[in-house]
């Protein structure tokens, strides 16, 4: 795809041990259909592996999917790993089976947005677009 036309580069990651990748794959494909370049890590990645890939691939946004209930541990671990890899300003969006009360907490810790089951894909795409634009503007200013 022509760089000019590319909406942005996204890493979709599956931290932790759960193999439920239906949602991650649907989001990855929907983002691609929406004009993004997408890298999918595959299942069972450590937070460090995900952060490293995000930096190496120079992505604009990271999307994470966890369905095992380990989101309260794994999402902050990815944020920490990104920070340590000097990618702390890359927006991270999460999705999965996540109870209401955890969402606020995760956003306070620095997650850009959290989506749960039943969210329209268009809503998720819009959030990725917005996060990408904000990140690119910020990066542009710094450069």
């Amino acid at each position, binding site marked *: 795809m022509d760089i000019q036309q590319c909406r942005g580069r996204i890493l979709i990651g599956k931290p*932790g*041990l*759960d*193999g*439920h*990748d*239906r949602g991650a*794959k*649907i989001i*990855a*494909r*929907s983002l691609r259909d929406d004009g993004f370049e*997408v*890298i*999918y890590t*595959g*299942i*069972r990645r*450590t937070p460090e592996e995900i952060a490293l890939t995000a930096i190496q691939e120079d992505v604009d946004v990271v999307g994470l999917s966890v369905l*095992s*209930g*380990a989101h*309260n*541990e*794994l999402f902050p*671990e990815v944020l920490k790993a990104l920070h340590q890899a000097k990618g702390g300003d890359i927006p991270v969006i999460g999705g999965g*089976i996540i*109870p*209401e*009360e955890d969402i606020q907490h995760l956003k306070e810790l620095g997650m850009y947005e959290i989506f*749960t*089951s*039943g969210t*329209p*894909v*268009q809503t998720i795409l819009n959030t990725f677009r917005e996060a990408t634009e904000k990140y690119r503007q910020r990066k542009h200013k710094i450069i």
Partner: protein
Amino acid sequence: MNKHPAFVEWKETVLKKTLERFPERQKEFKTDSGFPAERLALPEEIDDKYLLKIGFPGQYPFTRGVQPTMYRGRLWTMRQYAGFSSAEESNKRYRYLLEQGTTGLSVAFDLPTQIGYDSDHKISRGEVGRVGAAIDTFADMEALFNGIPLDKVSTSMTINSPTAILLAMYVVVAERQGIKPAQLAGTVQNDILKEYIARGTYIFPPHPSIRLMTDIIEWCSREMPQFNTISVSGYHIREAGSTAVQEIAFTFANACTYVEAAICAGLDVDVFAPRMTFFFNASSDFLEEIAKFRAARRLWARLMKERFKAKDPASLKLRFHTQTAGYTLTAQQVDNNIVRVTLQALAAVLGGTQSLHTNSRDEALTLPLEDSVRTALRTQQIIAYESGVCNTVDPLAGSYYIENLTDRMEQEISALIDRIDAAGGMIAAIESGSVQRQIEESSYTYQQQIENGERIVIGQNKFQETKEVSPPVFQINKFIEENQVMKLLKIRAERDNQKVRKSLAHLEEAVRGKENVMPHVIEAVRCYATLGEICDVLRKVFGVYEETKGY
């Protein structure tokens, strides 16, 4: 009364034998108006086409069910999959379920256990005790079944890559209760191929995994003849997004791979095939699901008879567990899920399932609360005891729609299996990623249909409510990981470590050679070797599997 010779013969042989051994639950079954419910309703004229395609229950081709009297004889096993946190907490839930009338246990293990890591491994962080019970050593397994006499229950264990280890632990727990392996009844999932396709808890590459599987089948056929050594599962394939046709076709293609492997290992098909079971999904397209189960039964019987030359009628019977479809549950208006589950459970029953798990209303949010699990179980009990559908065998047989759809499903499933065979079989199809891609395609189409409103999901894309109150959700004990690690460290310090090392060395020798691994795994488990240590030996010899990436 029908006097067709084939019917008379079925009545005097198959039915008579069953009624003598297993009398029906009631002397008579009546409709609400008071007249007798026919055991088996038949067409007025039984023709060759009927005999060939539909036949009589408990007899080839088993379209109408694997037992001649079906639920009039015995209801399906109400088996609720459960497990979380520690072995002790899960044990409490099992005892609760048994008190509430569940008739079989179904154990959920946490992800580190399923992937062969101890609770203190770095990769286990955050996942300990999340989706099931954490098991590191035999001591955890003992706590899991504390106070539950293992000769009185049948236990299903959802375990795949490390099946040999969990099965060994179960055997040693029974041993301590004074129960011999031969007295144990239950099922291990032990279905590795669908892990690469859909579920993700693989450890080793396909070929050594299949060797472990055949070792288990071989050992159990001698030592645990009542135990079902494999439950070939379409459930997760469907959850990953497949269609109903793909669910059955991929499951049968996996099953054929296992049967071939066992035959190659020198086992007689009629020795192990009767211990093979299946596990399917009951989703929302009510009539298609019923047709799916009936078509699957007929096709499997034919595959076993014609392709694998099985002779024992028990080898031809497709016995299966069913779970309602988790992917159809919505996080919005959660009570609607009770209705979805009811319809799906009814489809499973009308499709002739042998056991059933009904999902709980809150499972799109988190693990279910005890109250929700109770309602899910009551749903099964209402179908069983109030609805009257159990009073007659295969009540939908003969419906033009159901029979035509059953035929169509069978053709489509069979054609898809042929395509996989023609392309070099299931292992090749998995390694190339082609099966995974077909599922992804179906899953994406399904999602697009929801997005564009072509497929209606009540509460989600139609009849939404703007103000939703979020219901209370289940909480996992926050200290579970810490506690589990402390328990593990204590055992590592107190056990006889020299004995552990010796048992692991013996195991490695067996794994490298051709010897059956089961006796060595049991020995290692007895010495309190951990699940992670045993898996490390296997990983060292077999290597690990890397996912085929579609992206």
